[in-house]
C-alpha cells in the first residue's frame, strides 16, 4: 500500500470504527422513518373500510402499466418525459444505493462481478440522467413556471419551494454518489491499482476528470466527505418525504395497486354494508376527515400536486370554486395538521365550512377528466359523491336542487311533470304517421326497450331526439317499445348528487318495470341513463347506447345512409363524459358519422378521453353555480377553433348545454348543434312508399 494511504476500516471516531458508526446512523435513520410512517398511518387506521383486496392479477396489471410503465405520464410531454427519466433512474439506482450505503466503507468493498459491472455502467448513466433531468425540472419550475403549478389565492398558500427543495436533494444525492465513485477511482488510479471503470460522459466520469489531478489527501477527503453527504442526504430525504408531495415515492405503488377498478361506478355508502342494511346506518357520507376511506386518505398522501387534474377540470376552467388538486392538497394538509408527528390527534371537525365550501362540492359535474389524467390514479368522483352524501344527510342542499329532488320523489322526474304524460313525446301526430312507438305491456314479443329517461320524455327540444332515436330503431328493424308512465328517472344524477336512498327507490322501481316488460335488451339515447343501467343497476338485460346500435347496423347493412345533405358543413363530434370517459365508447359514434358519405368531420383538440364537459347533466341543470363563464361556451369556442360549424352530440344534456352556449355566446347562425341520432335519422335511406315508387318508375320509363 502506498504510504499515506488510509483505509476506511481503521478510521476511529468516538471509539467506534467508521463502518460501525455508519451502520448505527443508518439504523437510526430507518427507525426514524418507521416512526414517521407509523404516525402517517394513524388516520388511515381510523378511516372507513374500503374493500380493495380483490382481483390481484388485474391490480398487478395496473401496477405494471401505470406505476412501472408510467402510462399516463407522456400525456404531458415535457414533465412526463422528465418524470419517466427520474423514475427509471430511481429504480435502477435503488439497488446500488443500498449496496453503497451498507458496504461502501467496508474494507472488503470489492469490485463487482461481470454482471455487477454491467449494472454499474447502467447505474452510472442512470445517475447522470437523473441529475440532468432534475436540473431540467428545476429550471422548468423556476424559469418557465408552467401555469398549472400556480396556486390561486383562494386555495391558500402554495408549497412552491417543496418541489425545488426536493429536486435539489435528488441532485445532491446523485452528485455525492458520483463524486464518491469518482474520487475512489481517482485514488485507485493514483495508487496504480486497477481503477474502477467509469463510463464515458457519465457524471462520475466527468467528476473524475475534474478532481483526478488533486492530491491524494484531497481525494481522500472528497471520497469520505461525499460518502457522508450521500448517507445524510439519503436518510434526510427518506425521513423528509412523508411531509409533502414527495411522499408519493413511497405511496404510489400502493395507490396504484389499490386503485379503483370499475369505471362508471360509484362507491357504496359504506363498504361491506348491503343496500338492505343501509337503514341501520346512522350517518351517510363524509362529514369529517375520518369518514373518508383509508384508500381515499392514501390518495391524499399520494397526490404529487402536479396539477394535471385541475388543468383538465372544466369546473376549474370556468372559474367555479373547485380545483380537484386542492381537494387533495387541502385534505392532506388537514391530515398533517390534525394528526401531528408529536402529540395527540385533533379529529372530528366538519369538513364542509372547514376546508371545503358547499359550492366547491356542488361544482363538480363528475365528468371524470381529473381521474383520467392522474398518473397516480387518485380518485375524485367517489369523494365528491361521499361529501355530497354527507351534506344531503345533514339536509344541506341548495334550494333549486331540493325542488328537483322532491319532484323526483313524488313524480319520478325532476320537473314535477305528471307521470301519465311521460310518453307524450311519442304521440306527436306527424311523428305517429311514420313511426309507431308502443308502450310495453309485458307481452313477450317485444325484444327491445327504448329507455328514454326524463329529459327525453319531457323536454320540448329533447323529445325530438327521442323521436329521431325511435325512427332510427325502426329503420334498423328493431322491434321495440317504451315503458311510458311506468318509467321513472334513471336516478343517475340523484345518486351522484348524494341522495342514495332516493336513487335506490328509483332504481328498484325501474328494475321491476323493466323485468316485467320481458325485454331481452335495452337501448337508450342518454349516456347518463346508459351508465346508470349498465353500472348502477343490477341483473338487467344488456344495455346499448344508440350510437352503438347505429355503428353495428351500418356495418351489418341494415342501415344505409345517404350522402351528406349539406356538403359545406364541417362536423365536430363532442364526446359526452358518460359515453366516452366513463364507458370508453369513442369509436362507435365516429364510425356512425363517417358512415355518412361525404360528411366532413374534424376533431377538437380536446376530444376522446380529454373531452371537455358541456356543463353537466341531470340535476346539474338545476344547480346555479358561481362561475365566470359557462363550460358550454368554452366548448363551442373549441369547436369553432377546430374549424367546425356543427357540433354533433350524443347526449340530451350536452344538447341543452351546447345549444344554450351557442345562444349566449352569440354564435347563432355560425354554429349549430345536432344529436347523432337526429343526424343519422336525416340521412337514412328509406324505402319509399309504394305509390312514390310507382311514380318514379313511371318517370324512368317515360324518360327511356
Amino acid at each position, binding site marked *: 500500500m502506498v504510504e499515506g494511504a488510509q483505509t476506511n476500516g481503521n478510521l476511529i471516531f468516538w471509539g467506534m470504527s467508521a463502518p460501525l458508526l455508519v451502520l448505527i446512523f443508518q439504523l437510526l435513520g430507518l427507525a426514524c422513518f418507521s416512526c414517521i410512517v407509523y404516525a402517517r398511518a394513524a388516520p388511515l387506521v381510523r378511516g372507513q373500510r374500503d374493500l380493495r383486496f380483490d382481483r390481484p392479477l388485474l391490480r398487478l396489471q395496473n401496477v405494471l402499466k401505470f406505476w412501472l410503465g408510467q402510462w399516463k405520464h407522456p400525456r404531458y410531454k415535457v414533465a412526463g418525459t422528465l418524470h419517466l427519466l427520474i423514475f427509471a433512474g430511481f429504480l435502477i439506482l435503488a439497488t446500488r444505493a443500498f449496496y453503497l450505503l451498507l458496504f461502501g466503507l467496508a474494507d472488503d468493498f470489492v469490485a463487482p462481478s461481470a454482471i455487477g459491472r454491467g449494472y454499474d455502467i447502467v447505474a452510472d448513466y442512470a445517475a447522470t440522467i437523473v441529475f440532468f433531468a432534475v436540473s431540467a425540472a428545476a429550471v422548468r419550475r423556476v424559469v418557465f413556471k408552467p401555469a398549472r403549478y400556480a396556486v390561486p389565492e383562494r386555495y391558500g398558500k402554495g408549497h412552491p419551494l417543496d418541489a425545488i427543495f426536493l429536486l435539489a436533494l435528488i441532485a445532491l444525492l446523485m452528485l455525492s454518489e458520483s463524486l464518491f465513485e469518482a474520487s475512489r477511482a481517482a485514488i485507485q488510479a493514483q495508487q496504480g491499482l486497477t481503477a474502477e471503470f467509469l463510463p464515458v460522459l457519465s457524471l462520475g466520469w466527468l467528476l473524475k476528470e475534474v478532481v483526478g489531478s488533486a492530491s491524494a489527501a484531497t481525494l481522500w477527503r472528497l471520497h469520505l466527505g461525499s460518502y457522508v453527504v450521500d448517507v445524510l442526504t439519503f436518510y434526510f430525504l427518506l425521513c423528509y418525504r412523508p411531509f409533502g408531495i414527495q411522499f408519493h415515492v413511497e405511496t404510489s405503488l400502493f395507490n396504484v395497486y389499490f386503485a379503483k377498478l370499475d369505471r362508471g361506478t360509484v362507491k357504496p355508502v359504506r363498504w361491506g354494508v348491503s343496500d338492505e342494511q*343501509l*337503514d341501520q346506518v346512522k350517518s*351517510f357520507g363524509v362529514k369529517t376527515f375520518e369518514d373518508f376511506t383509508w384508500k381515499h386518505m392514501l390518495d391524499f398522501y399520494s397526490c404529487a400536486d402536479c396539477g394535471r387534474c385541475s388543468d383538465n377540470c372544466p369546473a376549474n376552467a370556468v372559474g367555479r370554486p373547485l380545483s380537484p388538486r386542492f381537494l387533495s392538497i387541502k385534505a392532506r394538509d388537514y391530515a398533517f395538521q390534525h394528526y401531528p408527528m408529536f402529540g395527540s390527534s385533533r379529529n372530528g371537525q366538519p369538513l364542509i365550512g372547514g376546508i371545503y365550501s358547499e359550492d366547491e362540492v356542488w361544482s363538480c359535474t363528475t365528468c371524470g377528466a381529473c381521474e383520467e389524467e392522474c398518473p397516480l390514479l387518485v380518485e375524485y368522483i367517489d369523494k365528491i359523491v361521499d361529501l355530497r352524501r354527507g351534506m*344531503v*344527510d*345533514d*339536509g*344541506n*342542499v341548495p*334550494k333549486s336542487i*331540493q*325542488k328537483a*329532488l*322532491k*319532484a323526483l*320523489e*313524488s*313524480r319520478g322526474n325532476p320537473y*314535477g*311533470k*305528471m*307521470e*301519465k304524460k311521460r310518453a307524450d313525446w311519442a304521440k306527436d301526430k306527424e311523428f305517429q304517421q311514420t313511426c309507431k312507438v308502443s308502450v310495453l305491456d309485458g307481452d313477450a314479443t317485444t325484444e327491445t326497450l327504448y329507455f328514454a329517461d326524463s329529459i327525453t320524455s319531457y323536454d320540448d327540444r329533447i323529445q325530438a331526439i327521442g323521436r329521431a332515436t325511435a325512427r332510427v330503431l325502426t329503420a334498423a328493424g328493431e322491434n321495440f317499445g317504451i315503458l311510458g308512465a311506468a318509467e321513472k328517472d334513471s336516478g343517475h344524477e340523484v345518486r351522484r348528487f348524494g*341522495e*342514495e*336512498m*332516493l336513487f*335506490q*327507490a328509483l332504481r328498484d322501481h325501474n328494475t321491476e318495470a323493466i323485468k316485467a316488460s320481458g325485454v331481452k335488451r335495452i337501448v337508450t339515447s342518454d349516456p347518463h341513463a346508459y351508465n346508470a343501467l349498465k353500472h348502477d343497476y343490477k341483473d338487467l338485460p344488456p344495455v346499448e347506447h344508440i350510437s352503438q346500435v347505429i355503428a353495428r347496423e351500418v356495418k351489418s347493412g341494415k342501415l344505409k345512409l345517404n350522402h351528406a345533405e349539406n356538403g359545406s358543413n364541417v362536423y365536430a363530434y363532442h364526446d359526452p363524459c358518460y359515453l366516452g370517459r366513463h364507458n370508453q365508447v369513442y369509436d362507435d359514434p365516429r364510425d356512425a358519422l363517417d358512415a355518412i358519405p361525404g360528411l366532413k368531420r374534424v376533431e377538437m383538440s380536446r376530444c376522446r378521453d380529454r373531452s371537455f364537459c358541456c356543463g353537466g347533466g341531470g340535476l346539474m341543470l338545476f344547480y346555479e353555480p358561481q362561475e365566470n363563464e359557462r363550460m358550454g361556451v368554452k366548448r363551442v369556442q373549441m369547436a369553432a377553433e377546430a374549424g367546425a360549424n356543427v357540433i354533433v352530440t350524443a347526449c340530451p344534456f350536452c344538447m341543452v348545454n351546447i345549444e344554450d352556449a351557442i345562444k349566449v355566446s352569440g354564435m347563432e347562425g355560425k354554429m349549430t348543434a345536432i344529436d347523432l341520432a337526429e343526424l343519422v335519422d336525416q340521412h337514412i335511406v328509406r324505402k319509399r312508399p309504394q305509390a312514390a315508387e310507382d311514380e318514379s318508375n313511371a318517370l324512368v320509363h317515360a324518360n327511356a
Partner: protein
Amino acid sequence: MEILVCARRVPDTSENEIQLNDAGNDIERDDLVYSINEADNYAVEEALQIVAKAGGNVTVATVGTDEDEEILRRELAMGANHGVLLSDDAFGGSDGKGIATILKGFAQKGKYDLILTGVQAEDGGAQVGGMLAALLDYPFASLVNSVEVVGGSKLKVGREIEGGNKEMNELDLPCVLSIQTGINEPRYVGMKGIRQAQSLEVPTYGAADLGVDTGSVGEVAAKVKRDDYFVPVAGKGAEILQGSHEEIADRLIELMKAKGGLQ
C-alpha cells in the same frame, strides 16, 4: 322551549297541473301529489333552529285524515321530536275557526311556550294563526320573518310590512306567530330520514281526547262554506303571452319598455 308547529298537507302547486273537477266546486284530486304547505315547512325549520339554540322540543300537529300523516313523518325526518295527527270524523268540513278550535284543544293538552303556524296554507285563507291566538288568549304576530329569543320569557320578532319595510315587535311567551316564507332556508329531508321516520309512533287524537265539543267543529259549525271554485276569466288589461320562450321574452321586454318599467 316547547314549540308546537301547526302544519297542513296541501297539493303541491309545482308538481301538479291543477284542473277543476266536473262539478266545478273543487279541483280534480285524482292525480295529485301532496306535500307539506310551504310556509309550514319554514315554521318547522324555524322551530328547529330555535330549539337548537335554546333547547327544548318541537311538536308538529296537523288536523286531517290518515293520509295527512305523511307530512308529519316528513317533519319528524326533518328533526321534529313529536308528530301528532288530530283526526275525527266530526272534524270534516271545518272552517278556519273549526281548525283553530281543534288546535286549541291540542295546545291546551300540553304546555307550549310558543306556537307557530305558516303564514297561510296554499289552499287556505290565513285565518288559523290569528284565531288560535284569540281562542287561547295569547299574543299574536303575523307575517313573521325573524325570531329572536330574549331571556327566557320574551321574543323579539320581525314582521314584513308592505313595501319591503320591517317592523320589530316584542312579545311575551307563550304566544302564537305566523311564519313568512323566506325566514330561513329549510333543510332538505332525504329519503333516508323519511324511511327511518316510518317506524316512529305518530299518535292520533280525536275530539274526545282533545276535549273538543263536536258541535263547535266540522261542517255543522262551519260558518264559512265554499260555494264555488273556478279559474277567473282573463280580464281587460291582462294578457297571456303566447309563443316560444324567446318570443314571450321579447314581447315581455317590449311591453315593459312601453309601460316605462324598463329604461
